[in-house]
């Protein structure tokens, strides 16, 4: 330690403040070898003693009793309503600010969304409703529109017009799961052929009746009766507007 560094800590040593032990020892050993710093430390210690004497001498000093009496009288004169309201601490003020900010932001978002909705053009024609496609392990509800054509109509087009068959015909089940169409056909759920099939069909699509080899059932994990392996099986394939097959169901 040099004299300059000693000067930085001499006050704290003389005043018996808590300082780093290493710094204290270094300063004391420096003052042992440096006459000027030894005198400096002695002066500071003497100053501390004298200031403590003064502090002790003044320890009993206090305001006269009349001050208290005057203040209590003044307190009585100030009506409780004139006393200032307790101040909310800074932390609570910040909390309140954040709360108001959050509420304001929430209101802005709500109004913004409402305004956006109001400005959006009303769609003239609704896209045709496509039955939901079953995901793995789920069953898609069957819409009567997608029920396969009956009788001699082997292949039918689907234009998505609602007024064509908006109401289910009597005797047609609208419950999800395998559907018995009239009294002739039973269909499985639609099985997705691509990821996001339901999304791809939101804009519309077309359903086509096809004949497939019986082994096609195995492709979709359905049981295959080997006695009828040579027979064909009917299926309805749903094509999206892009022309890609999106889902399939088998019909018996």
């Amino acid at each position, binding site marked *: 330690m040099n004299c300059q560094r000693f000067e930085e800590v001499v006050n704290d040593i003389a005043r018996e403040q808590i300082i780093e032990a290493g710094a204290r020892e270094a300063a004391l050993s420096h003052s042992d070898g440096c006459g000027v710093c030894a005198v400096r430390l002695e002066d500071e210690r003497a*100053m501390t003693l004298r200031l403590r004497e003064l502090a002790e001498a*003044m320890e009993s000093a206090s305001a006269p009793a009349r001050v208290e009496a005057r203040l209590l009288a003044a307190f009585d004169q100030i009506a*409780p309503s004139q006393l200032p309201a307790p101040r909310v601490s800074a932390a609570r003020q910040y909390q309140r600010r954040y709360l108001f900010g959050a509420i304001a932001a929430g209101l802005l978002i709500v109004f913004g969304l409402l305004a956006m909705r109001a400005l959006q053009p009303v769609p003239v024609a609704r896209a045709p409703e496509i039955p939901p496609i079953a995901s793995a392990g789920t069953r898609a509800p069957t819409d009567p529109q997608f029920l396969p054509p009956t009788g001699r109509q082997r292949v039918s087009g689907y234009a998505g017009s609602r007024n064509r068959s908006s109401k289910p015909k009597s005797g047609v089940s609208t419950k999800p799961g395998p559907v018995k169409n009239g009294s002739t056909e039973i269909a499985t759920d639609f099985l997705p052929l691509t990821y996001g099939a339901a999304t791809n069909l939101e804009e519309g699509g077309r359903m086509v009746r096809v004949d497939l080899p019986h082994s096609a059932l195995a492709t979709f994990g359905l049981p295959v009766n080997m006695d009828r392996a040579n027979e064909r099986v009917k299926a309805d394939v749903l094509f999206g507007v892009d022309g890609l097959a999106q889902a399939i169901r088998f019909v018996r």
Partner: protein
Amino acid sequence: MATQVTDSELVRKMLGGDKTAFAELYRRRQRDVYRFALHMTGAADLAEDVTQEVFIVLMKKGNEYDELKGSVNAFLLGVTRNYVLRRLRKERSFVSIDDTLGDTIAAENASVNEALARNESIQAMRRAVLKLPPHYREVVVLCDLQELSYAEAAAVLDSKIGTVRSRLHRARGLLIERLRTSSDETAAEKEIESARCFA
């Protein structure tokens, strides 16, 4: 065991109109306020006025106290400091040191000579402190005479701890110089007087 009500709670109660809370707070803190004012001004009557003003401020503006910023004591000493500095600017001269200090010292069980010497030393110290510029005087009073930590003193003075440390260092250096000078002058005066006696 009953726990003591904190100063902050007393302030809250006082603001709610609780007179006993105010009285309790006054009894707890008036000494620190009064002594700070007395050390800074050197005049008992002025210290008394300042103490009264400080507690009236507490009554009227106690809601400005924020416990996150510091203790009630620091708040009160901060107000005291402002009043003292204002009064110091108004009334430039403060010399009165004639309070009950001498009686306190004389009452101790020391010999009369020792008591007188000690009294003289303390008065000299007191004068030296009073001669310091206010910004040095206040750090000596707070840190050395009222034994506040650097952080507490910084809160009272609304300044940085480093500033308090450096001011205290400088203030103590000034005190050492002045006391050495005054003791040299006293010794020289005594030497002259004794020379006259023998002349």
